[in-house]
């Protein structure tokens, strides 16, 4: 009876179910700006995949409390836990990333116990692994690699779904291997490790190499104590970094594989779509396979035949009337407001699809409340699948 619709987007539909049905796809990465519903989207896709028979592990980063509860996640213990209440033959394990713990595990796995102990106790390491921004991106990447290794070895999962950190640049994790590489191959690390390798000798060698100015600068800025703390840390972690870097390279290659699918998440707002455009370009440049765009929080349009202008004109005619007339006027103005929002969203979505022709899109209407339980996630999954 009622005409209800969503944005009419001039783009091929993003068919989530055919991605989930494709057994060769083994990694799905959800990325997008902060606050667009990325984690919820990742969880909803994971649940849907599990209920379609896939054996799924979903790695979430900093999920909202109630979303975590919806999946039965109460503690941040860095281990995938089975989600109860899945129907069908599949399974769903969920976990929250514990950045520090992941880092500690990397250190322990790649160093002998004595050296690991020295690293874990280093004040520079402790700050780096728990307090500083940026570490999360590296660790998310590391964890994905670990999960995939485990899946290959034990056959535990046939699909891993990851959420990306809400970084200033949500794709920073793509740069992790290259940055680490340039750091490890660079001369800078040699300068940093020089003091630890044997006081004057290292520095002297570097000075001969023409870096006297540099070491002078460093000790002037950092002070000798910090320089030696960092030097000790870098020297100790050198081998660990090497192992970590190999893994990061492998994970990067994995992301370019056709068995991976990227889902860019946005809302029909200017900033979120601008970020989405950037992600789409960036993924293309890096040769990462893009499945399409999920547009969350779309204003549902009811009664498309009646424009906002018509509703306001009619409401104006009802002003100063009786109770029913003023009620009707209020309802018409409410309709006009919704139409106004919807047409702005429509305009923004059109700009995106015009700039990125051929990229599949699916839309999810704005929901009154956050997801509280599995049923709520299931409904989001259903809406996602109805492209």
């Amino acid at each position, binding site marked *: 009876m009622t005409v209800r619709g969503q944005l009419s987007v001039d783009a091929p539909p993003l068919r989530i179910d055919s991605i989930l049905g494709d057994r060769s796809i083994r990694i799905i990465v959800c990325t997008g700006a902060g606050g667009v519903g990325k984690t919820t989207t990742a969880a909803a896709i994971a649940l849907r995949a599990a209920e379609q028979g896939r054996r799924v592990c979903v790695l979430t980063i900093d999920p909202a409390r109630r979303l975590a509860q919806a999946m039965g996640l109460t503690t941040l213990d860095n281990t995938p836990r089975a989600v109860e209440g899945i129907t069908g033959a599949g399974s769903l394990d969920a976990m929250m990333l514990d950045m520090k713990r992941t880092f500690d595990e990397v250190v322990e796995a790649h160093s002998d116990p004595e050296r690991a102990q020295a690293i874990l106790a280093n004040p520079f390491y402790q700050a780096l692994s728990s307090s500083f921004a940026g570490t999360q991106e590296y660790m998310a990447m590391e964890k994905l690699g670990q999960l995939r290794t485990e899946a290959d070895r034990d056959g535990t999962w046939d699909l891993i779904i990851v959420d990306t950190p809400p970084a200033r640049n949500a794709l920073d994790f793509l740069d992790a291997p290259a940055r680490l590489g340039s750091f490890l191959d660079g001369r800078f690390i040699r300068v940093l490790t020089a003091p630890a390798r044997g006081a004057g000798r290292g520095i002297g060698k570097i000075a001969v190499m023409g870096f006297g100015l540099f070491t002078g600068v460093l000790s002037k800025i950092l002070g000798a104590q910090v320089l030696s703390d960092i030097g000790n840390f870098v020297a100790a972690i050198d081998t660990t970094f090497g192992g970590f870097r190999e893994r990061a390279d492998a994970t990067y290659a994995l992301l370019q594989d056709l068995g991976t699918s990227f889902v860019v998440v946005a809302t029909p707002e200017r900033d979120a779509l601008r970020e989405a455009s950037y992600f789409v370009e960036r993924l293309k440049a890096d040769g990462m396979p893009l499945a399409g765009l999920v547009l969350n929080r779309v204003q549902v349009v009811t009664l498309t035949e009646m424009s906002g202008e018509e509703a306001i004109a009619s409401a104006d005619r009802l002003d100063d009337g009786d109770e029913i007339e003023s009620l009707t006027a209020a309802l018409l103005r*409410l*309709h006009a407001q919704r139409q106004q929002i919807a047409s702005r969203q429509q305009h923004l979505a059109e700009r995106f699809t015009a700039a990125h022709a051929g990229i599949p899109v699916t839309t999810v209407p704005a929901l009154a409340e956050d997801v509280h339980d599995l049923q709520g996630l299931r409904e989001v999954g259903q809406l996602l699948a109805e492209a």
Partner: protein
Amino acid sequence: MHTSPWTADPDYAETVTQTRWPGVALHVVSGKGGAGKTTIAAALALALAHDGKRTLLMEVEGRQGIAQLFDTAPLPYTERKVAVAPGGGEVWALPVDPHEALLDYLEIFYNLRRAGSVLKKIGAIDFATTIAPGLRDVLLTGKACELVRRIDKNAPDAYQAIVLDAPPTGRIAKFLNVNSEVSGIAKVGPIHKHAELVMSVIASPRTAVHLVTLLEEMPVQETVDGIEELRADGLPVGGIFVNMTRPAMLSADQLVQARAGTLPLDAIAAAAAAAGVRTDPALVAAALGLEAREHAARVDLETRERRRIDELDLPTFTLPMIPDGIDLGALYELALLLRSKGVR
């Protein structure tokens, strides 16, 4: 005295001159992603610039959000005027680039700018600004501190207020507190001294950290958690900006009916027909009823979340949703609204 359209606004109380946050020089604006952090930071810079003041709007996430908001080409890393405020004030902008901030830092504190190219060649600049997590934040907060210290020194290029469009709520405490981490690592020496200096501005009454939220569950929860974190780190919390609120379109009685689905649809259809709607009136009434129900659910949610905000017992500034989106005109409107709520 200027005659501007703004002074004609009844909300524009010229007589109130007392500032809302006496002694605060650095306004840090954080909030959940998507809540309109950059918009509020810009409106705040504009509101604080009224009446001949000069404010600086800083951004640190490299997104060129200020340029987009003020509708200009991407801004370089220099202080540049982007808008005038009513009464002759000016808003300046500075998108801080970590690379440049590092070179600045070397120059200001060590007179070592010429070392920059050497550092760059061997990858040290890259290391400091992208690889070493946290150092970037040290540079960015350091720059904000330097701008505040200009005020203290009565420098000719000092601003009356600095507004920092900061990282989102989830990261804000760590971002602002990065220097106390650093001073813990570097226990003596120049870095230690610098870190202490930055913290003496940031964790002091010279700074106010404002949080932008929406009346939705997750953003409010993040705000509550964020305030807790800020307080635990001894960082000064300013106000809460409740953004994108929608006007109450229905009365309490009407909302009850809308919620229960008992709106008199037949009478509404008749009234709509009398008002000349061109679509089938019964269809119109049914659709309006459905929309009213969704609206009621939204109002309930907002009321619930509003209560949680009120419990925080902090100065709260409520701003409306601008249905057409934010442009320069909307920014001036929001700034005026903030003025009318005593922001100056």
